[in-house]
């Protein structure tokens, strides 16, 4: 069943409203899992704006989580006397802006690379940012950086950050949805399919790639700011994580690469599998997760939504028969 834009919007809002009741009915452990789910989904959708829509799979988006979090933490730590929500807003703006500037600056050289070369170069960016944060005293990456509290006094912090992640994730999803429906989104899809042909059709490929890269980085950085606040104290290791870099790709592969909702489905499914189903397997759970992913990728390379799509296509008459 294909939903029209109004139905899609209502479905997204309804799902968000239902999820918002989570902290009111779930035990604390599941609220923590829920936090991780909606945070991961937001990051995955932000990643997919470039990685899924345009086919430029970044293996280093943790760079923007770290830059966003550290920039916000450093600025917020030097501000006093303003209300917590305003302080968070300042952090979001600063974190997002720093990621925007960084991504815009590196977009010129790095987006000349394609495929594996781009992915590995982004991993390099992530590691360079981590090293800079760790080795330059100003950033306090090795000692750690405290975040001022932005939680209103009478709200459980776990619940507050769950809702904050949910709002952030929904905002990212709505932005990605608008991009997907737009001329810009169609251009990104054509870049993913065949960049040279896209250019021949008049798609301004360089400009579109850079714009998608910057949007993805800004949104990732803003989610990184919320992540920093939810931890309360960050070090280089807690934000520049290679397992995050890997997970962002896996979420899209699992749910459906290039789709809007695939990364959300993938993030929810993988977080649930690793944090709930396999959580009691201790060291074995990483092996089990890896094995599960290999099986899923081999059996369903298009992800969950790819399987759904192939079923719907099978129902159509073949093009040869249609002639």
């Amino acid at each position: 069943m294909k939903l029209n834009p109004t139905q899609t919007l209502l479905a997204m809002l309804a799902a968000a409203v239902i999820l918002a009741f989570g902290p009111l009915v779930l035990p604390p452990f599941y609220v923590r899992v829920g936090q991780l789910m909606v945070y991961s989904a937001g990051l995955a959708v932000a990643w997919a704006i470039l990685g899924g829509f345009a086919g430029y799979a970044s293996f280093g988006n943790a760079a923007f989580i770290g830059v966003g979090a550290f920039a916000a933490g450093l600025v917020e730590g030097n501000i006093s006397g303003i209300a917590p929500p305003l302080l968070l807003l300042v952090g979001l703006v600063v974190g997002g802006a720093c990621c925007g500037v960084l991504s815009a600056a590196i977009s010129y050289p790095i987006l000349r690379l394609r495929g594996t070369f781009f992915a590995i170069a982004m991993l390099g960016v992530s590691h360079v940012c981590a090293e800079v944060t760790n080795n330059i005293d100003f950033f306090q990456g090795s000692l750690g950086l405290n975040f001022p509290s932005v939680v209103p006094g009478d709200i459980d912090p776990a619940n507050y950050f769950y809702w904050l992640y949910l709002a952030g994730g929904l905002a990212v999803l709505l932005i990605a949805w608008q991009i997907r429906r737009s001329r810009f989104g169609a251009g990104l899809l054509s870049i993913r399919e065949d960049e040279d042909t896209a250019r021949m059709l008049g798609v301004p490929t360089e400009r579109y790639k850079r714009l998608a890269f910057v949007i993805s980085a800004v949104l990732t950085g803003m989610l990184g700011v919320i992540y920093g606040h939810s931890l309360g104290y960050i070090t280089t290791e807690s934000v520049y994580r290679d397992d995050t870099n890997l997970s962002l790709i896996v979420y899209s592969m699992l749910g459906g690469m290039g789709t809007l909702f695939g990364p959300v489905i993938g993030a929810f499914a993988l977080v649930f599998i690793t944090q709930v189903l396999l959580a009691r397997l201790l060291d074995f759970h990483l092996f089990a997760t890896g094995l599960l992913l290999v099986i899923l990728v081999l059996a369903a390379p298009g992800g969950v939504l790819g399987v759904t799509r192939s079923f719907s296509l099978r129902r159509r008459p073949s093009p040869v028969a249609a002639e």
Partner: protein
Amino acid sequence: MSTGILTVDRLSKNFRGLAAIAEVSFAIQPRSITSIIGPNGAGKSTLFNLITGYVEPSAGEIHFHGRRITGLATNRIAELGIARAFQIARPFRDLSVHENVRIGALFGKAGARDVAATTGKSLELAGIGHLAQQPANALTVGQLRHLEVARAIATRGDLLLADEPCAGLNPTETAAMIDVLRRVRADGVTVVLVEHDMPSVMEISDRILVLDAGRLIADGAPAEVASNPQVIAAYLGSPEPEAA
């Protein structure tokens, strides 16, 4: 040189000392169908690559509607109204036929656009309206050729460069493609073809340009070119003497 919708003036392209195109000049008249023929390696596809900005010329000028387009980016040239259908069909395989053509309509020539109407018209003009909802990766070779043309004309270009649109097609499919190109021209689009299928070339062309080793060796009406001794020697060859 007379002016036309497209004028190519002393265009050259060297690849590490090898002259792929050497001092080629011609002008294409509006609403005409011009075929470029020549043996393999004559520089036909390179000429298309130069016109569309895919590679930069070593020397010479290209003007489109009187505007110099030499050195412009490929997408800027498409925005000015030059569309191209590739020799090897390059569909967006994970998208449907309709989505493929819609992307052409969304971009291409700058200016006001009615995407839905252009997409529908292009699909019908290329004779693949009935395949609109099919995934591009399920099409036959012949259908892919039609999709290539449909997507190119959806860009609303004034000039269509079609690189061997009949390659690999059987006689029935070739006739269908010729019919499509005629309809495209009737719709006001100037067509330049690179083609090896000589019966098709003779049937459809108003004018033929012959390239050999990067040089333009003949330029004229089909009958005129077919009887040109230089063209016969370089490309067409002499008819086999009939067995007694």
